[in-house]
């Protein structure tokens, strides 16, 4: 039977992970968990919370990939949009798509810390950037279509 969560693991085991670095390494304690900024605090949570956090991160990564694909396609497919505005929209989308994984990682780390320490979840990171950026890119394409 798989042991998914190990929710009953004593929390004290985590900070000590660095201390016994020279101890014979078992599969369980083979490497200190990365990043320490996240895993050095708090207690092991219910696996479901960590998994949900991971899925949110992955949704951000897919959003980033979609933004990148949209930005490159906009320019590559030679759509009938005013070229300057089209390039501006494409660059904006690609910059957003490059920013998104960084924001996703930051949000993942902050949320994981909050889950481990039992605090309230932090406000979502980067929503404003994403929404404003996507709206601006859409507006640029729209204006480029009208003014063509």
């Amino acid at each position, binding site marked *: 039977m798989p042991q*998914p969560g190990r929710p009953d693991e004593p929390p004290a085991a985590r900070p000590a992970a660095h201390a016994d670095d020279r101890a014979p390494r078992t599969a369980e304690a083979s490497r200190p968990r990365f990043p320490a900024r996240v895993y050095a605090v708090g207690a092991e949570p219910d696996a479901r919370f960590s998994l949900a956090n991971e899925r949110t*991160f*992955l949704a951000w990564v897919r959003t980033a990939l979609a933004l990148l694909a949209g930005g490159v396609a906009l320019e590559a497919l030679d759509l009938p949009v005013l070229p300057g505005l089209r390039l501006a929209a*494409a660059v904006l989308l690609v910059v957003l798509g490059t920013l998104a994984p960084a924001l996703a990682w930051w949000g993942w780390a902050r949320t994981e810390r909050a889950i481990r320490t039992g605090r309230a979840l932090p406000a979502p990171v980067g929503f404003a950037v994403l929404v404003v950026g996507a709206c601006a890119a859409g507006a640029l394409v729209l204006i480029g279509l009208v003014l063509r």
Partner: protein
Amino acid sequence: MSDADPRSLARERTRLSWRRTALGLAGGAVAGARLLQEVVGPAAWLLALAGLTAALLVARFARRRHEADPSVAQAGGRLVTTVAVGTLLVGVAALVVLLALATDRVSVL
């Protein structure tokens, strides 16, 4: 399998989420290679190969993690960080492609 444990469902959803991400990565790599081919020639398919390899690795690693292999189950943060950095690099590459397309006025169609 402990099917009664709702955590197994959460694991399954997470695994499928990883799989969707890997598929997106693979598709993006092939599409990107098709575009880059216009700029740098057949060498662009190296990008497709790299992307497909990365997608396969992500899917495989996520599966081992899903099956709670203890040595891998702990690596969640490493996997997350690797994917974030990888996506960021894809973004930088996309920016380069974009600027190449914009300056050369290369069209795919």
